[in-house]
């Protein structure tokens, strides 16, 4: 076995096998209007959070954590690429058309993922809620009657599994760490808690698609996700916030404070130099 020696190394690398957005595009899978609008919601959530997390790069509290947050951001960007590619198939648009050339009121992200990074405690609070929600969502979307959505969910599930673990580990440590870390973790939860409820609102067209077993009904995620969030928060010695859900939980952006600023930064290059490549 001549390859044995060269394989005996910790630096042997490979790309591995996994579905890519390019393969999805060339597969010719085409979404209908309602499914595309659903995929757009899921894709926009991931895209906005990826953009927010990306801002931590070079600013995280430790080099190791910088890479962890960067990895998570790229995973989320990957999910967004899949969902936007699939959504675009209904309208003859590419992922880039949808990411860079839609305006504020055309995005369908929840406000939770648009919240600013704040300190590390707030970012972890946002990560905790979103990753627990996403984990539950994808674990059910793998059974979708829509094969493409099921395949995307299958790919994403392994990744959000890790995001969830990363967030829960930090909540435990910050909650049980010093007085200051406990205070900041609790404050982070309080800051974002008003936007939890929006994740579970059955906006159009999820109800109709859920009846056809294509989408996961958001309200059906409330019970299991909240139960698991409460457990992690309480085990970390923290308190589940009692904050009312913010008004206007409809993903339209009409009540979103941050969306426009995120898009301004995210889209500026593509709009100033349309078609630019590098």
């Amino acid at each position, binding site marked *: 076995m001549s390859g044995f020696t060269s394989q005996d190394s910790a630096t042997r690398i490979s*790309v591995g096998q996994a579905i890519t957005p390019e393969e999805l595009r060339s597969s010719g899978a085409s979404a209908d209007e309602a499914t595309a609008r659903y995929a757009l919601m899921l894709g926009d959530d991931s895209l906005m959070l990826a953009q927010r997390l990306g801002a931590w790069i070079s600013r995280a509290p430790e080099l*190791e954590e910088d890479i*962890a947050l960067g990895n998570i951001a790229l995973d989320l960007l990957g999910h967004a690429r899949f969902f936007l590619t699939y959504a675009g198939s209904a309208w003859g648009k590419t992922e880039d058309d949808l990411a860079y050339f839609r305006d504020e009121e055309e995005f369908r992200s929840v406000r939770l993922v648009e919240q600013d990074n704040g300190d590390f405690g707030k970012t972890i609070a946002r990560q905790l809620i979103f990753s627990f929600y996403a984990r539950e969502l994808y674990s059910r979307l793998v059974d979708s009657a829509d094969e493409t959505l099921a395949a995307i969910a299958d790919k994403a599930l392994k990744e959000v599994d890790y995001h969830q673990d990363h967030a829960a580990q930090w909540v435990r440590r910050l909650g049980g760490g010093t007085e200051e870390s406990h205070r900041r973790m609790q404050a982070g939860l309080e800051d974002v808690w008003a936007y939890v409820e929006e994740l579970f609102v059955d906006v159009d067209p999820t109800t109709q698609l859920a009846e056809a077993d294509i989408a996961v009904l958001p309200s059906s995620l409330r019970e299991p996700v909240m139960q698991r969030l409460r457990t992690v928060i309480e085990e970390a010695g923290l308190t589940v916030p009692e904050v009312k859900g913010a008004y206007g939980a409809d993903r339209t952006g009409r009540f979103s404070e941050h969306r426009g600023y995120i898009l301004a930064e995210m889209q500026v290059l593509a709009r100033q130099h349309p078609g630019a490549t590098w």
Partner: protein
Amino acid sequence: MPDKTPEGTEEIPAGGVVATDPADRSAWPLWEVFVRSARGLSHVHAGSLHAPDASMALRNARDLYTRRNEGTSIWVVPAAEITASDPDSKGGFFESPQGKAYRHATYYTQSEGVPHL
């Protein structure tokens, strides 16, 4: 590294060692990372990193050293727990076997009448 329970928790996070003062980031201990690239092979030293405790060290190692499918298993070891040989005693430690051909099987001639050796 003394075990220490952070205020407010009943037990040390899984993995054991906690930075002496969690607020002092420079106090995060150093960990050595070993990655096994495939089943049947040995764990090989890949590098080192800082982490507040063992289970976070494992996660950081996953992020830093298995980004390109390098591994099927990771070990992390507190760097302080490794006893290393002294580079200054290289001569006595590693150069003395030089020239001792009789320690190699090829030094010996094959006896006649012993097949399959």
